[in-house]
């Protein structure tokens, strides 16, 4: 069994149950311009400096600007896999439209909800949670401090309740406000102090245990940034861009970053252009990428087929959002699996890789670049909004060593060059423009080994065989999935928990929770979606009679995809739901508990 810790880092190591005080979750909400998100970001960074791990997601209203926003933050003494399902406290700068968010931040039993009496009555949806209500005059307190802002008072309250040392928070603020001068920094300190003082007055505390590490080498990164960095580590030097929510940050990170190291990003007029630009650049010998979301991927499938048929490597990032059509651009879903796997016309085998977490965006993107280049085909990275736009505190990730290495011809013999020649590993050495004698024409038409258009059945069959075999027979090692078993001595486990992509986080958390109850669960979180590693999967599913499949789609795309390719053994249950509501660990636990007791 490919046990994770052997090959991967500590993030993926199964943890045993935690004592209380090992994690907290809180939210800061406010209407547009109130600065709730800024306050949240400062606290997250400070927590990292202090040595904690953490995750921040954000929820914003439909307004382009001026709409309400919530920063949802989880901090813990180990890497945080997914947003919390219960929040310990909530600081509301105001209550505007809080009912819009309330579902995303359910309050825990002994939670505290802090609001400003000047902002009006506490909304029923909050009162009804049974949380302890605390009133603090944020506006008044901020008004009393020259240059004071309510969101900094709120930050102080949250820091106080969470036990974040003021000096660390101030260090973050100081570096951010450098350009604004000492006055602004001092005002922030005053606000923090006042907020912390308030926090003490509530008589409650949600302090984390002191961190086990000092935070040295901790990183703060979003999934979209991590995809960009992973791609560049993998060898990408060219990107083509057309913005789209929630993928734009991949491109916005790549643009200045590529420039720094000698690469380039080209802004395209549309996605038809962006993917073709990437293909053109790759034809020129440069590992190339583009990033988009569902609507853009739809526009790219024709050229994806071209990359596959002409065997020009290319990486396309799809940061999934709610679908179909324009759907819900700002919310997550896993429903582009079908188009990613099956979206080309004709038979067009290619690679689909799904990052398992914010941190794994780095690994997966780097690996995907490597795979695309090694096999001269298209690789799709199926990330999603829930990890792409989440910001996480992680251990500084080492480079996984996967570097693009394209099989090329270095010189051409007298007999000439056959671009699409048959070889033992099914990969035809490629001539990169500039090589004398290597001239050939890349073609999306069915072609002979030389690359000339052909309507012959033999050419068609053999090139199709080659393109299938090169991806099917490639050695993907252990990376096709992250696999963990929570109670090692119970083997085979009582349950398999089979999922993919970003749902690895909640599924892993569910596995941890179940281990507290002694329920033995084996998690199989698939990273390599296509080609399906059928044998490996069946081996891992093993003799366990019960497998729960979890995914965030309406129609059950993942389950059907697995069914199409292999006979799943034993009893199968399937838990799936579309977005925008995330699927949380407790729901997954409930599914398994129900099953166990049935």
């Amino acid at each position, binding site marked *: 069994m490919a046990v994770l810790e052997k090959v991967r880092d500590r993030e993926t190591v199964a943890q045993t149950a935690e004592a209380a005080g090992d994690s907290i979750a809180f939210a800061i909400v406010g209407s547009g311009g109130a600065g709730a998100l800024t306050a949240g970001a400062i606290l997250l*960074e400070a927590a*990292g*400096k202090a040595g904690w791990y953490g995750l921040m997601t954000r929820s914003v209203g439909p307004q382009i600007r001026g709409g309400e926003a919530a920063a949802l933050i989880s901090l813990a003494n180990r890497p945080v896999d997914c947003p919390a399902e219960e929040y310990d406290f909530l600081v509301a700068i105001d209550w505007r439209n809080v009912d819009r968010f309330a579902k995303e931040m359910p309050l825990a039993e002994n939670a505290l909800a802090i609001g400003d009496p000047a902002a009006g009555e506490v909304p029923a949806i909050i009162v009804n949670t049974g949380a302890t209500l605390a009133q603090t005059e944020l506006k008044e307190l901020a008004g009393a401090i020259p240059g004071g802002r309510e969101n900094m008072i709120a930050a102080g309250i949250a820091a106080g309740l969470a036990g974040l040392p003021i000096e660390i928070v101030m260090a973050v603020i100081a570096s951010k406000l450098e350009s604004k001068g000492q006055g602004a920094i001092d005002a922030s300190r005053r606000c923090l102090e006042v907020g912390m003082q308030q926090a003490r007055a509530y008589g409650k505390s949600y302090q984390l245990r002191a961190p086990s590490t000092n*935070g040295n080498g*901790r*990183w*703060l990164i979003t999934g979209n*940034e991590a995809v960009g*960095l992973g791609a*560049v*580590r993998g060898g990408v*030097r*060219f990107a*083509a861009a057309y913005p789209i929510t929630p993928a734009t940050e991949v491109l916005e990170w790549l643009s200045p*970053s590529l420039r*720094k*190291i*000698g*690469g*380039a*990003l*080209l802004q*395209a*007029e549309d996605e*038809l*252009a962006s*993917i*073709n*630009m*990437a*293909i*053109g*650049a*790759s*034809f*020129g*010998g*440069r590992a*190339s990428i583009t990033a988009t979301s569902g609507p853009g991927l739809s526009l790219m499938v*024709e*050229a994806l*087929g*071209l990359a596959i048929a002409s065997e020009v490597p290319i990486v396309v990032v799809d940061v999934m959002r709610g679908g179909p059509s324009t759907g819900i651009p700002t919310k997550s879903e896993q429903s582009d699996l079908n188009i990613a796997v099956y979206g080309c016309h004709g038979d067009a085998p290619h690679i689909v890789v799904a990052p398992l977490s914010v941190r794994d965006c780095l690994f997966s993107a780097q690996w995907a670049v490597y795979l695309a280049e090694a096999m001269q085909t298209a690789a799709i990275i199926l990330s999603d909004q829930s990890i792409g736009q989440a910001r996480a*505190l992680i251990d*500084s990730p080492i*480079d996984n060593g996967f570097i693009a290495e394209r099989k090329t011809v270095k010189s051409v013999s007298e007999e000439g060059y056959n671009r699409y020649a048959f070889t033992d590993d099914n990969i035809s050495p490629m001539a990169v*423009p*500039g*090589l*004398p*004698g*290597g*001239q050939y*024409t*890349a*073609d*999306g038409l069915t072609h002979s080994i030389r*690359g*000339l*258009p052909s309507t012959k059945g033999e050419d068609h069959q053999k090139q199709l065989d080659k393109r299938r075999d090169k991806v099917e027979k490639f050695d993907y090692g252990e990376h096709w999935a992250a696999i963990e078993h929570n109670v090692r001595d119970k083997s085979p486990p009582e349950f398999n928990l089979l999922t993919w992509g970003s749902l690895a986080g909640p599924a892993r958390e569910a596995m941890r929770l179940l281990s507290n109850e002694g329920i033995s669960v084996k998690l199989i979180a698939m990273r390599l979606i296509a080609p399906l590693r059928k044998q490996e999967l069946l081996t891992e599913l093993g003799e366990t009679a019960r497998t729960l499949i979890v995914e965030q789609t309406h129609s059950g795309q993942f389950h059907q995809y697995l069914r199409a390719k292999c006979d799943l053994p034993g009893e199968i249950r399937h838990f799936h739901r579309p977005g925008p509501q995330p699927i949380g660990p407790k729901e997954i636990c409930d599914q398994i508990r129900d099953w166990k007791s049935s």
Partner: protein
Amino acid sequence: MNVQQQPAFKAGDYKSDITPIWCPGCGDFHVLLSATKALAELGTPPEKIAVISGIGCSSRIPAYTNCYGFHGVHGRSLALGAGLKVARPDLTVMVMSGDGDGFSIGGNHFLHACRRNIDMTYIVMDNRVYGMTKGQPSPTTEPDWDSALSPGGTGLSPFHPLVIALASGANFVARSFSGNIKATTQTIVEAVRHPGFSFVEILSPCVTFRPDESSWKTQTHSASVEATDDPARAARRIMTDDGFNVGILYRGKRKPYDIHVEDTFKDPAILGEEFAV
């Protein structure tokens, strides 16, 4: 480019051994001939040239040259070419297309390629018809040209490629007639030499679906005036021309697009630093 140091090339060095599928008499044979002659005159070695196309009779041209080629999908040749040139500024990139490929499905990329002004050459073999799909009207087809798809004609006034090129920022704009090998060769040479995005429309008759285009031989005539570098003047001239005016009509002075991939790279490790807390 230091032509002296290059070996002397002949047109034949740029021609492959593949027999074109074109109908006997198709204007595209002449375009191929002119292009290979032009490349020989330019003297860039074949392996340093990429010929990029989409889909159509005209778009079959890359494999008939002895350069690197990419026969992509319909309408996207300019995007392939742009990516290639930015990634490989050392190559000479020639994008070769048809009126359907380039102005119908590919119209948006044409607009934006002109605007972007990347240093490459765009040659459109305009036969005013979709040849490959057997005779439908293209954007440059006359409004009264009868066909199965548009019985009695489309009634639409034809698209003016040169005007659009100019209006959207192409840096070099010319028209040629495929039958005139000498002039076409010279126009291509100058287009490739001119910095930035160069556009050449070559009137290239389709003998099969537009036999009436045999009259082009006599209809085309050279532009009576010298090329200008003033886009407004060039526009005025082109907007009132008869569509058969051949020659170089505009040579602009806009700076070519200059963002590109370098030859050597810094270690990407430096990029991780910004994430350290």
